[in-house]
């Protein structure tokens, strides 16, 4: 089966639509009950980062979300128009080293903990790609 793909302009106004969409797609792929909200929160943390840090909230820049069901898991890819490569910065762990009393800096950490596996690289076009894997039990 082909992947599900969603392209949206960088604007807060679409976040709720993306959230309910991810929940319903998750459910249709077998994510159970209230787990669908954990899933959508994890994915949304990465989508918000892509809009904010990757695309500077510029509505002419879009974020692409690709969702594909694999045996035992769902793969999510979130691609923005930036070129961020945290795994290339030695010792950098997003979410670590941020100040404890900052009101920011917890998105990746939360996504990673909810999903268990989040990593970043560049897609074939050289753009920032966040990959999130959601285990299906």
């Amino acid at each position, binding site marked *: 089966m082909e992947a599900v793909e969603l392209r949206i302009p960088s604007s807060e106004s679409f976040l709720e639509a993306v959230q309910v969409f991810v929940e319903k797609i998750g459910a249709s792929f077998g994510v159970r009950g209230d787990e669908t909200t954990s899933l959508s929160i994890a994915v949304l943390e990465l989508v918000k980062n892509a809009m904010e840090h990757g695309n500077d909230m510029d509505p002419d820049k879009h974020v692409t979300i690709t969702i594909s069901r694999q045996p035992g898991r769902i793969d999510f890819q979130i691609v923005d128009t930036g070129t961020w490569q945290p795994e290339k910065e030695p010792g950098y762990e997003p979410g670590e080293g941020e100040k404890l009393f900052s*009101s*920011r800096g917890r998105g990746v950490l939360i996504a990673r903990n909810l999903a268990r596996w989040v990593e970043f690289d560049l897609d074939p076009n050289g753009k920032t790609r966040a990959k999130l894997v959601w285990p299906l039990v």
Partner: protein
Amino acid sequence: MKIHEEMKGDVLKIRLSGKVIGGPELVELKETFQNAVNHDRLKVLLDLGGVTWMDSSGLGVIVSGHTTLSRADGEMKILNATKKIHELFIITKLITVFDTYTDEEEALQSFEE
């Protein structure tokens, strides 16, 4: 998200319920904390018993509420975080910043000390 405020002696109990996640509603929560300080209600017990979900933006507003209160010599404590929310506090190390309680009486008394 719903916000319910109630005085318990000199402690302001703020009960949140529903989803505490990014969006326009968080502005209201920010203002609730600011109002508490403006009205000299410096002992705040934040009841998270009814919170179903929280994301990084929700946590961010709670942290900045804590900061606002601390600057005014006030204090914020957490009541009734569910397992899921408690885990969020552990993941983000905020468990080292907030006193958390599961018993309301105990929480209220802790402000007296």
